[in-house]
């Protein structure tokens, strides 16, 4: 026999014969298929062995037919149990009563299992399935209750499960809700029904107001109807009846449905609802309406002993559809045909979170997106697909044709212009499609930050964070300026050098370090990292701008959407992690993504807080980065007992009156270090400062000088004289920083022309 078998099937037969749970097998070949009937030994307790079957009807040895298709091993064999194998087991695929029962032995595709783990794995699954069927353990409480299989049914009811769970108050009343339906008239029956969430009493005029049906010329039938939801009634002890029996789907008529409802404890609600509906239909139906089609979704709610797979609720939704002319529904009593339907969840934040595999947040704190451009829209949509889109989006820009190259949203084809209106509103619409309400503010971010009313609207008091994706230096400064009024830390997302790199800066919740500190630290880091330097710092071809229109103000870098999306995906994941784990406290987190070909290498850096020195009687603040602070301390330690000093490097934000000190240039060796003074030698210093600055393409520059005092004290007379000299040197303000044993003190000199 084996010689005529395809070699793959012949090997399969040998494998089946060798399986430790298979006692014997027989073969039959037919048209292009080979059927192997393998007798599996089923594990069961001794008493059941003696009885010859388990209480669930499984025998000690069960024949399973493996039907190998002509394209095996590309496709897995199909499985069949003996014809009289009880269908009252979970994990049996729904199918006609006349066909042999088909066990569902693996979550997913049997063919994929075959390719992933081989035929042995398929056989192991069959054996384990039979063991579980015999011992009543096909449903694993740890995994959850397996709902009645209805995945191959053609009718689909879309409903918010959370709302339906709430229909289990134990009262014996039916719930009526509105619904919309859709089906193709000439196709096999398959009705799509969207069930509404609001319930209402079935008054005399309800049907007239509610029911609509239309047949469009393209073969589509659309309509509105009502749905009936029947939950279980409380028992004498006040609790809901728990249905532990797995009942395979076999309902075909209203009579069957009533019986099934009785098993689930919902008979009272169903029967009341059906009677009321019939009465109302009879009242409302004129002769002309009697052939009017009735599409009636009915959902039974059954309480199971433990939560269903993938949910936290023990309530199982078991939906059906009645589709018949009103006259038949009213006249045919319990013979009216009923067809089972499957349930799909209404699109919701929770559904998106579940499908994304992220933990549900009971009350997610709002977050604000500034800038709904390429990067901002991608991050917003990506997080929106995780059920956690922004609560507010601020952007005053409109969607221009060139945005179509990279924006997460698609232009409105109807306009023929490639436009989509304001970006914030467009994003609001897109997020609405993801069942999320987003406030859209069509205003310039700078205006918003400057206007307390708008700011309150843009960044609610309980905001989790503000994500700045504007790629605007002005916005960055304005955010730092507005920090005391924001009550929320800033996360800055940016792409650099035509997609050569991207950064995500997350400032500390206590504002130290802030984004300004972190940007300065990033530049400092670029001094010793050529790849980062090439991507970040201006001067190279990678920073060329694209002309998007004559006189256009847009500073758009050329890069494909794939690059933006690639960076945005990682940023979204990082933000999602922060949403789950919390924002950093007393440190900042910088993610740097460097692209090499199709790869992006991400690294995360923890930025330590800065030393903050407020200059007395001056608007200026000096923020000394942790590395610079350490370099100063080390220099002082090198020269004990005398004053020492050097040049401060970093950057200045005029808008926020802040010096960001990122490093020092040591004083030349010939400088004078004495107990009473420090004299900075300038010979050779200029070149050292210039080199430092050149290494960052001018992003970091000289800020002034620092020197130490051996006792806590402010500027000496000599210091004041030097400051006057410095003032003459440049227009930009300079800092004179003094480090003494108790801390820092500083003075600012400004060469303002007066």
């Amino acid at each position: 026999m084996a010689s005529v078998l395809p070699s793959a099937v012949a090997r399969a037969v040998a494998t089946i014969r060798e399986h430790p749970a298979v006692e014997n097998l027989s073969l039959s070949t037919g048209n292009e298929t080979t059927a192997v009937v393998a007798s599996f030994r089923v594990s069961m307790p001794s008493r059941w062995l003696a009885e010859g079957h388990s209480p669930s009807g499984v025998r000690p040895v069960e024949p399973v037919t493996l039907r190998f298709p002509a394209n095996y091993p590309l496709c897995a064999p199909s499985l069949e149990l003996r014809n009289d194998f009880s269908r009252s087991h979970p994990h049996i695929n729904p199918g006609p009563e006349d066909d042999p029962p088909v066990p569902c032995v693996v979550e997913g595709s049997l063919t994929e299992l075959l390719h992933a783990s081989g035929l042995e794995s398929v056989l192991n699954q069959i054996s384990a399935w039979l063991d579980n069927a015999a011992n009543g353990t096909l449903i694993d409480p740890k995994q959850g209750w397996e709902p009645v299989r209805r995945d191959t049914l053609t009718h689909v009811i879309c409903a918010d499960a959370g709302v339906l769970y709430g229909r289990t108050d134990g009262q014996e009343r039916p719930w009526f809700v509105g619904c919309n339906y859709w089906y193709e008239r000439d196709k096999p029956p398959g009705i799509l029904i969207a069930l509404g969430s609001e319930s209402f009493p079935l008054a005399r005029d309800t049907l007239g107001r509610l029911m609509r049906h239309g047949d469009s010329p393209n073969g589509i039938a659309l309509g509105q109807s009502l749905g009936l939801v029947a939950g279980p009634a409380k028992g004498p002890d006040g609790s809901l009846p728990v249905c532990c029996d797995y009942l395979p789907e076999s309902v075909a008529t209203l009579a069957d449905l009533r019986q099934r409802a009785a098993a689930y404890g919902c008979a009272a609600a169903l029967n009341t609802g059906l009677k009321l509906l019939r009465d109302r239909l009879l009242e409302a139906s004129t002769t002309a309406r009697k052939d009017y089609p009735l599409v009636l979704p009915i959902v039974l709610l059954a309480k199971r002993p433990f939560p269903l797979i993938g949910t936290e609720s023990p309530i199982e939704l078991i939906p059906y559809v009645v589709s018949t002319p009103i006259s038949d529904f009213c006249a045919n009593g319990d013979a009216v045909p009923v067809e089972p339907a499957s349930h799909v969840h209404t699109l919701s934040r929770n559904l998106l979170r579940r499908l994304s595999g992220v933990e549900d947040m009971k009350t997610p704190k709002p977050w604000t997106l500034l800038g709904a451009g390429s990067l901002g829209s991608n991050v917003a949509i990506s997080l929106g697909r995780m059920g956690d889109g922004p609560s507010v989006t601020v952007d005053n820009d409109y969607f221009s044709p060139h945005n179509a190259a990279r924006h997460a949203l698609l232009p409105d084809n109807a306009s023929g212009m490639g436009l989509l209106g304001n970006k914030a509103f467009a994003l609001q619409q897109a997020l609405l499609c993801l069942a999320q309400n987003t406030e859209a503010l069509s205003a310039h971010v700078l205006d918003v930050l400057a206007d307390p009313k708008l700011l309150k609207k843009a960044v609610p008091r309980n905001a989790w964070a503000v994500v700045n994706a504007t790629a605007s230096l002005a916005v960055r400064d304005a955010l730092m300026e507005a920090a005391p009024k924001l009550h929320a830390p800033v996360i800055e997302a940016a792409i650099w050098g035509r997609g050569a790199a991207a950064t995500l800066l997350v400032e500390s919740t206590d504002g130290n370090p802030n984004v300004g500190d972190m940007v300065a630290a990033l530049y400092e880091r670029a001094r010793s990292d050529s790849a980062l330097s090439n991507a970040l710092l201006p001067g190279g071809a990678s920073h060329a701008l694209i002309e998007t229109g004559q006189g256009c103000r847009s500073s758009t870098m050329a890069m494909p959407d794939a690059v933006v999306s690639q960076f945005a995906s990682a940023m979204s994941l990082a933000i999602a992690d922060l949403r789950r784990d919390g924002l950093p406290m007393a440190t900042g987190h910088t993610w740097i993504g460097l692209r090499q070909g199709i790869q992006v290498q991400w690294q995360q850096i923890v930025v330590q807080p800065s030393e903050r020195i407020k200059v007395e009687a001056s608007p200026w603040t000096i923020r000394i980065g942790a590395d610079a602070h350490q370099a100063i301390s080390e220099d002082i330690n090198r020269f004990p007992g005398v004053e020492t000093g050097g040049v401060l490097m970093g950057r200045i934000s005029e808008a926020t009156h802040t010096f960001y000190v990122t490093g020092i240039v040591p004083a030349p060796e010939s400088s004078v270090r004495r107990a009473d003074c420090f004299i900075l030698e300038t010979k050779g210093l200029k070149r050292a400062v210039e080199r430092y600055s050149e290494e960052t393409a001018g992003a970091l520059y000289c800020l002034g000088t620092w020197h130490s005092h051996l006792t806590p004290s402010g500027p000496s007379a000599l210091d004041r004289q030097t400051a006057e000299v410095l003032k003459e040197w440049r227009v930009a303000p300079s800092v004179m920083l003094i480090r003494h044993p108790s801390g820092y003190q500083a003075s600012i000199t400004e060469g303002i022309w007066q």
Partner: protein
Amino acid sequence: MVSVTYFSVDNGDMALIELDSGRKILVDVNIREAADDPEDDTPDVARMLRERLDKDSKTGHYYVDAFLLSHPDQDHCRGLERHFHLGPPESHPGDDKILIREMWSSPMVFRRASKNHTLCADAKAWKKEAKRRVQHFRDDKPMESGNRILILGEDENGKTDDLGPILVMTDQEFRSIDGLRDSSFSARLLAPMPTSDDEDEEELLSKNNSSVVLRFKLSAEGNEDACRYLTGGDAEVAIWERLWARHENRPHWLDYDLLLTPHHCSWHSLSRDSWSKLGEEAEVSPDARSALSQARGGAYLVSSSKEILDDTNDPPCIRAKREYQTIAKEAGGRFERVAGPQPSKYTISRDGPRLKSAAAAIGASVSSGAIGRQPLPHG
């Protein structure tokens, strides 16, 4: 979960009984040194045992509530010294050695060495520890976990006469473990049996025939009689014949839902004839067979042995396997071997014991479109 777990130790015994109360009784060990070598295929049963044991909440030491050594043969006590703490519990060095809270020992420990009674190092260690614990009792010291012992059966010459509370008499049913009554089990001591003058003492005093034969009743899921388990070490045909003679009128003392076929499926437990010499001519002892065939409906008969081949070897013996298969079939039950490398675990529900179906090794053949396991991409 109530269970009896057989570790895969070839021709040897090693079983762990887990009671409904959570207490654990270890019956024999055969922990071969080769198991320590990761390159060797010998299953690492010591690790597998520890995985199933609890640690004392105070001391952090692994422990078994009771350890029954059926008889002091190497294939029943190998590895005792290496893996178990022997000596006063307070002298435990703090390593991963397993503390025996209560020893269940045959009275062989009181016997002097003879040609029938040569002991391996592990057996000597058991004997020494048993004697220490008996002395502890005789010294009237407080009996607590780690010092407790039960002597299963009276010794000849009155050496056990003074043991009262720590002696279990033949035919007696006991229900305590580590000094506490445990309602989730009972065990009846069927052997060793007192000898009489007209019997062939030489035969009955051999090590194999000194085996402790116990018939447990294990409760599970509210059924006090969920599983009757008969275990008898290496007891040979003479013992089983005598047992039948003693209990013919009360066969329910011998009946079982789970039987560990004696002496690794040896023909010598069923027949006085030599299988290797007589082959199929060898005859089954009707009384021994009767003693070993009191299978309740659907009973499992287990062979803790090497693979049973159709050859002249004994044990395991193909003829014995056939006999046990017949007994199993008559009862609508099953004959199983501890095939390893993973232990065979018989879980016990209110409806009796059951063995989970064996699974095939994944990727063992090239019969499918795929060889072995493949990573699973997601689209």
